[in-house]
């Protein structure tokens, strides 16, 4: 069993439908602060290795995920246990080594599943997964490359990725060598209108590529488009250190006993700069979405490491421009592809290795998604509760999803490496037999930690994908795509496009760094003006000004909000009454009424159903009763 603190409520049974209770379950690495309390005034802060000075009446565990677990020991014979339990936690923390070998989750749940069990979300570890996804996106000019099957191009890259059709694997290998850590340009997403969103690491300027290599690099970046925009994703966005500092400050601010006076709360919140970083991310993602949507081009996200902000921006851009990414399934696939498979160093970034490069970029991303959810409540299939569940899962030591830095380490662990000899051929399917490796569980196996009632709440009852009349059609829509000028190369920076003489920094011309010194100050126009620039002539859209499916988020000061339900969970009084019944209440009522109607007049029910859209299909009456019983949100840890 992985190192954790678990509280088991009375009456809770091991063999309930969830093996672990997500509410009272704290991974040791998640413990941010441990306090023992006795009486009204005695509070001791327990660091790893400290010695408990009294018998506690209560211990309070402040999670790094903003949760608070408070365990009271009832008086009367429990004193010795109270002391023992507390000291055990202290010692376990001192000994715990986050990088210790993962022992795997050996639960009956895992055993139940047969070998043919399919993961709920494609883990993007097989070529089939990539091929299926490629077909889904209708990315015709692209193919799945197997050049990294042995992780010899880059260990941080997935074993498979998409490259342009015309580029040979040998060229890919050579071209990738000229990028930082071998992370060359790969397709992230193919826009149905024809644009391609690419991501890559920084140019490895010390290398000395020959002409053919440069040509290969260039054609990979251009991906067959004449209009190419290079986006420096580090520009205007916070550094890793900034993100980490902001997050630490935010956590300090949200502690229940933070010393900030109520009338100084807003400036204290501002002082964390967390919201400001969210604003920067949303603004940039919105700009890039406009670039991708406005005309057929290749948009390349370039970050030196290609493992942090690139993933954040690429995911946000897809959420803004692709309605399918806003479904529950689509979003999970997106995270799996752009973060997990793409090699975001989760373990390091979330402080698992104790290295200095801790920075919760992924949590920043989740907050950005939450902002979008607030701004477009009818456009997302998943709810805030789903985001909370994901937020709380990043340090849970049950699955490997967030516990490794690279796909290589993850693959090594789950024993999948023994299948690396197979060669990808189209239509080839992996033999299910002979798969000796463990059944791999991922974070997307929600039923490990969440009950059915909780999982039901992952659905956003207000989801209404049809609220836009021109709902998304996954076919090329050349009408709003303006062809670019022949062979133009741009650098997108500070909200403006600057022409570049060439794509690569090598050859005789100044390097990209030199180009960047010519960056224009951001013109004093907002990103809407980028939309203006791109769509100056709205005539061919008629009344609907934006391409269907595209969301342009707001990011003015008053529009970026504080994720209260996540960050203030340590302050139980703030959480009360937050989930006032609105849409879900109505939905319950709808189902209830329809049920009644069905009972009374069994014959007319089909007519009723066909007439109206049926938003309640996921709920059946018995489940409703379950929800009503536990109306308080399932992710609140403290209940008083």
């Amino acid at each position, binding site marked *: 069993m992985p190192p954790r603190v678990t509280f088991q409520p009375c009456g809770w049974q091991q063999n309930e439908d969830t093996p672990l209770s997500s509410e009272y379950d704290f991974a040791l690495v998640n413990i941010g602060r441990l306090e023992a309390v006795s009486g009204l005034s005695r509070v001791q802060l327990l660091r790893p290795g400290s010695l408990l000075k009294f018998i506690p009446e209560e211990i309070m565990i402040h999670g790094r995920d903003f949760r608070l677990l408070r365990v009271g020991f009832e008086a009367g014979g429990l004193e010795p246990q109270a002391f023992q339990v507390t000291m055990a936690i202290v010692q376990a923390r001192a000994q715990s080594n986050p990088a210790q070998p993962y022992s795997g989750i050996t639960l009956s749940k895992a055993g139940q599943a047969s070998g043919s069990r399919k993961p709920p979300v494609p883990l993007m570890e097989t070529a089939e997964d990539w091929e299926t996804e490629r077909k889904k996106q209708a990315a015709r000019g692209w193919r799945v490359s197997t050049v990294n099957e042995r992780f010899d191009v880059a260990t941080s890259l997935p074993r498979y990725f998409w490259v342009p059709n015309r580029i040979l694997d040998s060229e890919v290998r050579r071209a990738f060598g000229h990028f930082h850590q071998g992370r060359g340009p790969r397709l992230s997403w193919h826009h149905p209108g024809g644009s391609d969103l690419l991501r890559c690491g920084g140019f490895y300027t010390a290398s000395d590529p020959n002409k053919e290599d440069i040509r290969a690099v260039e054609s990979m970046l251009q991906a067959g488009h004449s209009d190419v925009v290079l986006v420096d994703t580090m520009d205007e966005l916070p550094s890793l250190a900034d993100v980490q500092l902001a997050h630490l400050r935010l956590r300090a601010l949200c502690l229940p006993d933070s010393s900030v006076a109520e009338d*100084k*709360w807003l400036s204290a919140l501002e002082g964390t700069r967390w919201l400001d970083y969210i604003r920067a991310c949303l603004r940039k993602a919105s700009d890039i979405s406009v670039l991708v949507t406005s005309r057929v081009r290749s948009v390349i996200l370039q970050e030196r490491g290609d493992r942090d902000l690139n993933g954040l921006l690429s995911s946000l851009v897809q959420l803004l421009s692709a309605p399918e990414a806003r479904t529950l399934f689509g979003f999970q696939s997106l995270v799996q592809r752009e973060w997990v498979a793409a090699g975001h160093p989760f373990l390091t970034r979330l402080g698992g290795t104790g290295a200095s490069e801790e920075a919760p970029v992924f949590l920043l991303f989740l907050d950005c998604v939450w902002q979008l959810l607030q701004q*477009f409540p009818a456009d997302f299939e998943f709810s805030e509760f789903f985001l909370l569940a994901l937020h709380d899962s990043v340090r849970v030591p049950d699955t490997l999803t967030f516990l490794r830095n690279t796909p290589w380490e993850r693959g090594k662990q789950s024993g999948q490496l023994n299948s690396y000899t197979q060669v990808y051929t189209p239509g080839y399917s992996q033999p299910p037999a002979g798969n000796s490796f463990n059944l791999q569980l991922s974070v997307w196996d929600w039923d490990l930690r969440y009950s059915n009632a909780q999982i039901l709440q992952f659905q956003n009852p207000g989801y209404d994908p049809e609220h836009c009349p021109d709902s998304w059609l996954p076919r090329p829509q050349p009408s709003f795509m303006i062809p670019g000028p022949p062979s133009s190369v741009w650098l997108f920076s500070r909200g403006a496009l600057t022409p570049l003489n060439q794509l690569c920094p090598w050859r005789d011309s100044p390097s990209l760094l030199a180009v960047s010194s010519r960056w224009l*100050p951001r013109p004093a126009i907002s990103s809407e003006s980028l939309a203006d*620039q791109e769509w100056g002539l709205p005539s061919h859209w008629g*009344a609907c000004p934006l391409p269907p499916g595209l969301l342009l988020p707001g990011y003015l000061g008053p529009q970026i909000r504080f994720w209260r339900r996540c960050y203030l969970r340590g302050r139980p009084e703030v959480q009360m009454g937050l989930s006032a019944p609105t849409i879900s209440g109505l939905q319950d009522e709808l189902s209830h009424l329809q049920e009644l109607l069905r009972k009374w007049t069994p014959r007319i029910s089909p007519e009723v159903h066909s007439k109206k859209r049926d938003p309640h299909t996921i709920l059946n009456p018995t489940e409703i009763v379950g929800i009503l019983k536990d109306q308080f949100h399932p992710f609140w840890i403290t209940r008083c």
Partner: protein
Amino acid sequence: MLGKGVVGGGGGTKAPKPSFVSYVRPEEIHTNEKEVTEKEVTLHLLPGEQLLCEASTVLKYVQEDSCQHGVYGRLVCTDFKIAFLGDDESALDNDETQFKNKVVGENDITLHCVDQIYGVFDEKKKTLFGQLKKYPEKLIIHCKDLRVFQFCLRYTKEEEVKRIVSGIIHHTQAPKLLKRLFLFSYATAAQNNTVTDPKNHTIMFDTLKDWCWELERTKGNMKYKAVSVNEGYKVCERLPAYFVVPTPLPEENVQRFQGHGIPIWCWSCHNGSALLKMSALPKEQDDGILQIQKSFLDGVYKTIHRPPYEIVKTEDLSSNFLSLQEIQTAYSKFKQLFLIGFPPLPPYCGSDNTATLLFSPSSAYQLPSDNSTEFWDTDIKWFSLLESSSWLDIIRRCLKKAIEITECMEAQNMNVLLLEENASDLCCLISSLVQLMMDPHCRTRIGFQSLIQKEWVMGGHCFLDRCNHLRQNDKEEVPVFLLFLDCVWQLVHQHPPAFEFTETYLTVLSDSLYIPIFSTFFFNSPHQKDTNMGREGQDTQSKPLNLLTVWDWSVQFEPKAQTLLKNPLYVEKPKLDKGQRKGMRFKHQRQLSLPLTQSKSSPKRGFFREETDHLIKNLLGKRISKLINSSDELQDNFREFYDSWHSKPTDYHGLLLPHIEGPEIKVWAQRYLRWIPEAQILGGSRVATMSKLLEMIEEVQSLQEKIDERHHSQQAPQAEAPCLLRNSARLSSLFPFALLQRHSSKPVLPTSGWKALGDEDDLAKREDEFVDLGDV
């Protein structure tokens, strides 16, 4: 920040020099001119409204997203409003204009809605007042509902400029006599065609009967009585003709100090405790008079301290609480955050000079703007700017005071006596808030309107002075009523299902403060209203003027638009005899078939048991102590009351308390951001949820009907479908306001797209093409 638009125009790269950017080029102007004269829009005048002056070929700037363009038209000033008549209207004749105000169009500014007028002279912006020696090229009008209008007068004939500018300045800023209010000319002219809405059940509290009814409703009639001692305002002009006092209080006491020093009943709680108010006795130097005052007060207190009256707690709102000056200062800082449309102002020579200067967020734009980062800085500073206005903190303090009083009444069963100099400012605010929290009736629309009628209009709140409608004394201007509405908004925002009205209702109510055809907000007291009701001149033997009240919403909005004022989520209190009242069900608010209380079951206790209660206190104490600075005992009571209420499931038909922690007090975004095009989120925000909600409610209703049909053979009445939001697929978050900013009418950028970006030379040219009209 919100300043984006401003900087978009003039700040940023080239600030501070160019004050404005227009994409209308000189050659375009002439072609436009011809078209304008062809499709002139006719001025719509209200009964009794007179055209005072006008000017043609005025260019009105329209801000859309980040670029601005101009519309030509006529600028007129009447004795009711300033109106701009452009040819822009044609674009607005579609579904989105369903929420049109019938009285004030979107290019109309009532004279009382004008906040500040600025003129631009040679790129310098100055406040305009009094006699002008020189006339500006541009006129900028800041409105009290936070709209900003900018008119270019460069192409207008000189004598027209003179006439319109001095006309506007005179009619909006010169002190006015009460009798010259448009209210009276309108009422005189519209005498015959004013129809009072028979369905309007708002209680006006202008008859003895109304007070008796209220006493009966709150079961206060055992200990309190309605008196008519002030009929005809014989005793006092401050008090209404009828009011309620403790039963044993002798009537001569009321007359003794003209109504000062006597406890006047506001409201009774279900447990018998009551909320009272008292205006302080006049301050006297003479010891003898002081002695008399003292013994008088002793007598009064004796009456209300004896059983059957509960223990009285006196709450002095004149000291140790907010000062009116504080409110005014905070609001004038706060509103600057949202008044966008132009670069920095020169210091305004008003009373509050320093504060405005220190604060003005636009001061950032005055800096040399070589470093382009400062533009984004304003957004970074948003929260501290907001905080430094302390408007939100004032709201918090009001809500907290109201909770404290609620605690005394509800938990300790005490009477609370509010004390204030005239009992007509903070008294109105606090007593209304207490009633909103304690009395679910006040959360219905009729109840809320009656509450305002009772506490504010009859309570003698000096609307005329506090809104400075007559421009007679700037120092009296304090937005107490707006503060109240903002406090109510916090409650509505935190507990939407508890209120029958929406935030849109509150927003249009705040706008109605400045529409001088309603009597509600245009008098200082009921006495002032009654004495001015007669027709002008002596020859009137006919009936008195019939003034409109703002509660007749059909004057301003069509029934369709009025659906937006009604909260679809509001659940009417379950009635016992609901079986018999099927027919009524859909006409009024809908009723959930699952009672809400059921869904709010008590929280699971889990590991958190009663015994650890003191630990909760320990934990929470640290936090709450920050909220409180009064005595320990009070602190404990307040904390316990506040925490225990919030830890229980909410009963929307019972006591309702707001959250007052730092993150919980928010900006009333709808009111303050609605005119800022950058703030809109297309297809997003609450509007999206709202349309989904309405759709589902419709579905529920039709199903309920079906069930009723099956159950009883008779036809159920057709539900009135809330159709305003239907079929409107991607509404902007600014809906239903700010209809002007529509993407489809977006102007063509002269330098759009890639062509301009061909090389660096072109980039330089592109900058030059931001034509500053001032240089033309």
